[in-house]
């Protein structure tokens, strides 16, 4: 084994992929993975979905089995890193120990955006980000019958669906005028609004939370319109903040995430960042992006591993996302920010399957596909290839998608 050492801070999707990609790209030195949760990296997306409603353990969610890390000679350490010393090239752990690095990768993730209202400390009030949160929510669920969810983003809506599946009464509160406002077109918001109401969710839009009330245990939620809602479980999902403090304290550039180049490198050539905490320059969308999704974490990790091993693999993959709610499988390809036109294929006002395509300057840039995996895979390919499929043909469900891949005009040829 080589004598150099890569230290990875954060046990996450990005770091699991880093371990694979570093070995694959020829790194023969040490790999030390430091995580502040007791578990090896695990799949987070199922936490708000099957994991919340089910009985599986965190081991079932491991991204790679423990044997993988043994075989690839990756050491795992359960500790929190409190400081980076760039001069000494060391990280300091919470027990005071200092560990040297030759290359350092920050996979620090993000944390729930805090809600600053009275009563957040009451029992039965939770954020939803990691395995410990879910364990706590599962404990609170015993005997709970009325849940209030603050925030109608993906986390809030997935939690609502999981809790309805368990027979819990659910109220969802959203300060905006529609669900998923930040991320989808109005037609997609209207679809999810309808389905959640059909599934028995009491959805209240344009209303904020003033306080959570109760003695030790939360019993009610006071709203900005002065209404009260009885609740024995409250889940807060109002977005996340990137974990940048460690990098910031070390003097690295931070601007909505740790600033990295197209290879995941910070302004220190020996320090990299990957995943939710990293803000990279993206050539396809010609701007800086900080994304919160598995595909982005995996892509960052591959680029960083390449850069560490002297292989040029700039960040280039198309981001994609997914969300499971009830019998709905939503798959999202690309980023819709900046779209000027929407094309619907299928009717979101009826039934439970359709696709919404987002165009900017005639070019397909993103798609939200509900129970339409084929439309999703079509979009992944068409967006990656920079195609401009004919919009009226795309809107007709009778048009075979494969024909649109051939007939599409691409700006380059």
């Amino acid at each position, binding site marked *: 084994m080589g004598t150099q050492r890569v230290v990875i801070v954060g046990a996450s999707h990005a770091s699991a992929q880093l371990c694979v990609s570093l070995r*694959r790209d020829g790194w023969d030195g040490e790999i030390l993975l430091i995580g502040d949760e007791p578990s090896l990296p695990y799949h987070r*997306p199922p936490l708000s979905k099957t994991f919340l409603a089910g009985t599986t353990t965190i081991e079932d*969610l491991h991204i790679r089995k423990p*044997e*993988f890390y043994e075989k690839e000679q990756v050491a795992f350490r359960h500790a929190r890193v409190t400081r980076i010393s760039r001069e000494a090239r060391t990280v300091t752990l919470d027990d005071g120990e200092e560990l040297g690095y030759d290359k350092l990768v920050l996979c620090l993730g993000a944390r729930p955006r805090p809600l600053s209202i009275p009563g957040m400390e009451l029992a039965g009030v939770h954020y939803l980000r990691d395995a410990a949160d879910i364990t706590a929510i599962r404990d609170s669920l015993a005997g709970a019958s009325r849940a209030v969810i603050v925030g109608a983003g993906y986390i809030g809506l997935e939690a609502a669906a999981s809790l309805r599946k368990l027979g819990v009464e659910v109220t969802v509160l959203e300060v905006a005028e529609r669900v998923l406002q930040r991320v989808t077109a109005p037609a997609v918001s209207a679809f999810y609004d309808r389905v959640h109401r059909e599934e028995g969710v009491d959805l209240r839009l344009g209303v904020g939370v003033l306080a959570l009330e109760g003695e030790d245990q939360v019993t009610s939620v006071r709203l900005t319109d002065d209404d009260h809602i009885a609740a024995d479980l409250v889940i807060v999902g109002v977005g996340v903040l990137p974990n940048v403090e460690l990098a910031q304290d070390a003097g690295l550039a931070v601007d909505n995430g740790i600033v990295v180049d197209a290879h995941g490198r910070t302004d220190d050539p020996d320090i990299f960042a990957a995943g939710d905490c990293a803000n990279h320059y993206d050539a396809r969308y010609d701007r800086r992006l900080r994304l919160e999704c*598995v595909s982005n974490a995996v892509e960052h990790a591959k680029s960083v591993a390449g850069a560490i091993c002297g292989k040029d693999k700039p960040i280039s993959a198309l981001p994609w996302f997914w969300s499971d709610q009830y019998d709905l*499988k939503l798959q999202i390809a690309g980023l819709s920010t900046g779209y000027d036109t929407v094309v619907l294929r299928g009717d979101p006002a009826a039934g439970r399957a359709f696709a919404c395509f987002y165009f900017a300057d005639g070019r397909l840039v993103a798609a939200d596909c509900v129970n*339409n995996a*084929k439309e999703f*895979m079509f979009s992944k390919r068409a967006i990656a290839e920079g195609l401009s499929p004919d919009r009226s043909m795309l809107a007709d469900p009778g048009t075979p998608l494969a024909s649109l891949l051939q007939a599409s005009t691409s700006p380059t040829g």
Partner: protein
Amino acid sequence: MGTITFVEHDGTSHDVDLVDGESLMELATSNGVPGIDGDCGGEAACGTCHVIVDDAWIATTGTRSDEETQMIEMSPECAPNSRLSCQLKARSELDGLRVHLPEFQM
């Protein structure tokens, strides 16, 4: 115990130990087989674990489900024996199975 062989597009083959009940995607990622990412963890949501089952084995593995077809058929490398390896559970009858990887996952 048994063996499953993953053959990369360039012909490089990887023999991995068969673990009863685990999906082929899990076996591949646990053993670091290049070309199978399995980003979604086995939800048939991402399509990054596409494999093509050797002709001799398709009768034993069975053909793909409608759900898999939806995910795979937009790939330019989709073949009649294409499967999502997260949906293929390893079992003792599959000892000796060979699957081929496409050049690119979508």
